[in-house]
């Protein structure tokens, strides 16, 4: 009982000594509180940086809020931005639960976008197929292409123990160049770096499409992809919390040796996780080309697959909290763009990630400040 509680000392020479002591129990409220707390600290640090470079942080933050939640129109735009983040965030959260560091959601997203586009552009289906056929075919293709892209590192990891961080990261670049080849080459629209616009049958329905019936929806670009995201979050939650496989995932995530001892087939789980994780990211790519851009183009993702990593962390790998975190980041990306095209929002994102990672120490340790004893 006294092992592991030995205090770790931090080397600061002050009249008091700061010690970290291992927590014996973690209260339920602590994890969400630390999340909120570290976001607050991150925003504060970002505010200082903004002030130092001559900006007005208060106005900037107010502006961000205004521009993302200020009206139903911008709220809709926020949700459009959040949609791919929910799906890629789920992809990362699911893999991270098992301590599989899938850094390749970006590449899987791109391949999903490519697969969905291929259905329209090759074309796989006869011309004039109705949306009810085209959309499911695109979803399937998007999911499968992303899943196959995830399967490569999954199999390498499960069968040969190849580090998945390296493989998933590298595969991102291959996916990027693969897409570039198609949009610059075979699918290029008159030499531009984009394909022809998809026919209407390949568009995901949007709220604004219902404007004739409900005038309020006019101009709202939220599309069916958001529903994919919400359904996927519910499914992933159910798998993790209620299924036998979810139990195995939690077991492997906590202790692979204990899982093996309990008779769990770890290799199979690794491959399956990568398949589903890649598939979710692929579905995000499909939803983006079919719901927003309506064509494949270079730079279709402003780094959704990487932001997803932060989102998964922010949500503490909890599928339902992924949705909330994704909406927040959707807002940040949307409104941040109004302040500055790239610098400030990326800086805030990065600061939040650092805050979160730093706060993890507090989840496991308690800080004790003590007056130094007479002898030293």
């Amino acid at each position, binding site marked *: 009982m*006294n092992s592991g*509680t030995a205090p770790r000392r931090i080397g600061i020479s002050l009249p008091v000594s700061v010690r970290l002591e291992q927590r014996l129990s973690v209260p339920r409220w602590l994890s969400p509180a630390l999340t909120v707390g570290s976001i607050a600290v991150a925003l504060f640090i970002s505010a200082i940086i903004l002030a130092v470079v001559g900006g007005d942080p208060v106005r900037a933050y107010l502006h961000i809020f205004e521009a993302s939640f200020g009206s139903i129109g911008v709220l809709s735009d926020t949700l459009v931005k959040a949609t791919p983040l929910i799906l890629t965030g789920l992809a990362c959260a699911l893999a991270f639960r098992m301590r599989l560091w899938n850094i390749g959601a970006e590449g899987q997203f791109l391949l999903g976008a490519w697969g969905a586009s291929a259905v329209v552009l090759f074309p796989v289906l006869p011309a004039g197929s109705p949306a009810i056929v085209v959309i499911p075919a695109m979803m399937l293709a998007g999911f499968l292409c992303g899943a196959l892209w995830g399967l490569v590192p999954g199999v390498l990891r499960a069968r040969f123990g190849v580090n998945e961080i390296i493989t998933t990261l590298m595969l991102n670049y291959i996916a990027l160049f693969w897409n570039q080849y198609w949009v610059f080459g075979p699918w290029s629209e008159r030499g531009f770096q984009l394909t022809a616009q998809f026919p209407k049958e390949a568009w995901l329905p949007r709220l604004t499409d219902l404007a004739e019936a409900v005038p309020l929806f006019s101009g709202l670009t939220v599309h069916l992809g958001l529903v994919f995201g919400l359904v996927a979050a519910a499914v992933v939650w159910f798998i993790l919390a209620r*299924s*036998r496989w979810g*139990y195995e995932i939690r077991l492997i995530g*906590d202790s692979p040796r204990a899982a093996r001892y309990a008779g769990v087939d770890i290799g199979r789980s690794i491959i399956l996780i990568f398949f589903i994780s890649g598939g979710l990211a692929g579905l995000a790519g499909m939803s983006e080309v079919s719901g927003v851009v309506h064509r494949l183009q270079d730079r279709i993702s402003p780094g959704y697959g990487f932001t997803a990593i932060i989102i998964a962390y922010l949500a503490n790998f909890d599928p339902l909290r992924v949705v909330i975190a994704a909406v927040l980041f959707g807002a940040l990306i949307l409104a941040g763009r109004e302040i500055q095209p790239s610098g400030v929002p990326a800086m805030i994102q990065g600061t939040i990630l650092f805050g979160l990672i730093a706060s993890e120490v507090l989840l496991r340790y308690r800080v004790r400040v003590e007056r130094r*004893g007479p*002898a030293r």
Partner: protein
Amino acid sequence: MTAAGQTGAQTGAQTTTPADPPADRAVDLRGIVKRFPGIVANDRVDFDLRPGEVHALLGENGAGKSTLMNILAGLYRPDEGELRVHGRPVAFGSPRDAIAAGLGMVHQHFTLVPSQTVTENILLGLNRPRFRLRLGQFEAEIAELATRFGLRVDPQAKIWQLSVGEQQRVEILKMLYRGVDVLIMDEPTAVLAPQEVEELFRTLRAMTAAGRSVVFISHKLTEVLAIADRITVMRRGRVTAGGVRAADTNRTDLARLMVGREVLETLERTPYRPGALVLAVRDVEADNDKGRPALRGVSLDVHAGEILGIAGVAGNGQSELAQVITGLRACRGSVRVNGEEIANCPPGTAISRGVAHVPEDRTGVGSAPNLSIADNLIMKRYRRSPVAHGWTIDRKAGRRIANALRDEYRIDAPSIDTRARLLSGGNLQRLILAREIDTEPRLMIAVQPTRGLDVGAIEAVHRIFLDRRGAGTATLLISEDLDEILALADRVAVIYEGQIQGVFDVAAASVHELGLLMTGGATGTLAGGAA
């Protein structure tokens, strides 16, 4: 060493006036209090040590023995109380300070660099040699020191080549070389074979004869009575008997002082009536994690209603044997359970054939530390009804079973939602046993089932084993504690360097003979001498 005397002001009223003047004592601890989150590990503890004596510190796990000695060795600082060394008040900021004051501790887990030689390890952290590593002179010094105290070890051998017993000698040498005159040994015999224990005791006596003193931490009554001049017993952070002369006490009294109630040291057992053959291991060979042979042609039989003990010094293939039978390690040869070949099948096969496994590594293998007690209790049942419900898990059924097991096996925890890592050693082992035994196994593989447990918990675990034996389970009991095997097993097999040296009826076996076989047979060449 630093700031000696500054703590003098803290000293409270000293109530006890001992017979001998304090200045004559090597060590004097007064009113030591040390608190950890949620627990008082040492509650106003007094302890003293005279030059030239072995003073045993006896107590169950968690009684606060190691905490007290970690304070003395400079690892922890006491919250209250006073330390005196040879009459001078001291306050240690680190083990370095303690060593400088002549106090050195040999921990249960050694702190040696495996790829370096004995001499290099002993010199590590010292300022010598200053620049050029000319080790010859130091090797000679160390060899001389080793001979003086009967510590047989080759100064040029690399640590990884040494047996555990030899590594312990290196740890002792490390302290002697630093000139300590008080040696604190934390559970030193836990890893040793009987003959090695004798050799250690000879060394300790040589030290006390030279005027040095030893604190001997243990929970084993036999050893304490064999080596100690005086004994201090601790229970739950307090001293229940302070500095009793070993000659004035006995096992029964010590056990009661340690546990707080009467302890039955021998359990009743039903007559030995072995049933059908359950486990048949034939010519099994396997490699260890480093790819070197760990099992070389092991053959064993275990019958229903029988406990077969495997005796041996740690690292002679015991862990690998358990892993081979439970499917956790690949092997060559045959492993049959109830006639069915299961060698090299995945671990799930053994589980579904009714093989329970109480693993050696409870926190790394036997449990998932960050999952709840409930999740840990269903580890071997989540595939089957009632916990499994199609491809989902029936959480209510799981919780019902977990609650029932917690009550039946007295797992002491606030709730079944508590994380397993917060359980004490004894409670965690009860959790693992509850999970493994409640499935009515046909075969149970138990590795070091009571290591680190206190007397009360050991008694409970032993009772469970004998109950299972009565119910017809075949048990393979792998233990480094020969007393445990002799108390529980019907037959005992001795393993040495991956080979079974012989199988004996426990009733006919002699400790001396078993001890010899455990160390490779030939008398006088313990652990192969200089490697």
